[in-house]
């Protein structure tokens, strides 16, 4: 499979998706289709290599979850994105599809406060359990006071 074929396949199967570029293919899907799209990427595009999961805080436009996966055999790179919408911080978890999403989603919850629906073990990973706030949100200023260490 080449990148162009993969693009065509995505366009065919997910008509609502915005597709951009070839290496990597950037595909933005709606949050409802998120898990289905991940499963499609894994099973049909054979993008089995899970690179990373993160989020971007677009202030008023809300949060955007970004996932990068690769097909190591055919060298196809796919950047999956979904916009959660303003004020929303719930996203379905893709842990059933990619095991690597376990720690990455925990980190994302830690930093952005996104609740991943279906993640079995969603706790803070890098920060302490009693940390207040989610530091990578743009509303969390660098000098936000935090409680002293206990």
């Amino acid at each position, binding site marked *: 499979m080449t990148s162009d074929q993969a693009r065509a396949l995505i366009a065919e199967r997910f008509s609502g998706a915005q597709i951009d570029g070839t290496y990597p293919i950037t595909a933005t899907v709606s949050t409802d289709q998120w898990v289905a799209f991940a499963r499609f990427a894994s099973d049909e595009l054979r993008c089995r290599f899970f690179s990373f999961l993160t989020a971007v805080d677009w202030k008023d436009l809300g949060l955007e979850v970004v996932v990068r996966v690769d097909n190591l055999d055919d060298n196809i790179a796919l950047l999956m994105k979904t916009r959660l919408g303003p004020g929303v911080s719930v996203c379905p978890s893709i842990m059933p599809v990619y*095991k690597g999403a376990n720690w990455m989603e925990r980190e994302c919850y830690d930093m952005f406060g996104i609740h991943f629906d279906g993640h079995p073990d969603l706790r803070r990973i890098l920060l302490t359990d009693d940390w207040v706030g989610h530091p990578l949100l743009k509303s969390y200023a660098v000098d936000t006071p935090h409680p002293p260490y206990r």
Partner: protein
Amino acid sequence: MSAPTVTPKRVELDYTGSERLTMNMGPQHPSAHGVFRAVLTLEGETVIDVDSVIGYLHRCHEKLSETLTYAQYPSIASKTDYVAAMTSEFAYVRAAEVIGKFEVPKRAQYLRVITAELQRVASHLLWLGTWCMDMGGALGGGATIFLYCIRERELILDLFESLVGARLLYGFFQVGGVRYDIPSGWADSCRQTVDVIDQRISEYERMLENNPFFMARAQGVGVISRELAESVGISGPLLRGSGVAWDLRRADPYSSYEDFEFKVPVETAGDCFARYRVRMVEFRESLKIVRQALDKLPEGPISSRPGLKSVAQTRVPKGEAYVRVEGARGEVGCYLVADGSAKPYRMKWRGASFSNLAILPHIIPGHKVADIVAIMGSVDPVFGEVDR
């Protein structure tokens, strides 16, 4: 830090009559390569369950990078993976270059290749030493190999010191090129060092190859299947040890890597020994690349942009990119979102060690306590990169 909640099922007496023991390994433990805590559930000497606790070294690099300009951050980027600082800087600088479509002169590209490969050798030397020390103990043969490796690593650090003036955190890269040109005589001393290290690597192999003590500890321990490897997203020598021929220098060439001849070692067993073999071949291939790059090193400028005069000199146009380089531990990636100012809007650091370490809960159960340190060592995590 409050303790993570451990589900009671893990510590109760098992109904089969075998008693379970919860043991903390770390955060301060001789074989934790940094500050890592593993909450182990043991049945005798066999590990049933492991819960990893990370984040002791968290410095919030991603938030920090939003407050620092493209000129300032590269020297901080080296603090993520402090054992292979050159490749960390490389990833960040390249991300900015890809978004801004900045040219990099050929000489700078070659210098980047030379330093990145020397850094890989230095990092692998530290890995070999610490891994053997994990398996052999600081009061045994492991310490001997460790000290030999450190002895050779010092030679490379000396080279870096005469190139940039620092031994660990370099600040060698800048957007558009590199900050320092090589001093006179550096190429010759580099060639000599490469030869010495090439010879010394054979000595390590003679100490370890076929050695029954070493083989017994490394073979068949910590087996990672290809499916698991890809799904968790481990990269670098670990992925290649599991039978995937995936090297970013070959698959997605950057910085003139296509000019050089080198092999991508692959092993299929997926155990600690396979990872050891992959890294041992990588040593030689990296040295080969350094030799080729030194021979072909072109003349010319080392940076396409004027030397840094003020803090906000580098502005990157609006855009986003995910750029990855093959670091010593695998895919070091930088997902950069630029908004046209002198500072990034958002930076995601994909540390190779973070993803590599996530494999531990999948492979450790079923092994003995002594195997944990062997597996941990073969994963080669650097906690600056895990916790960022």
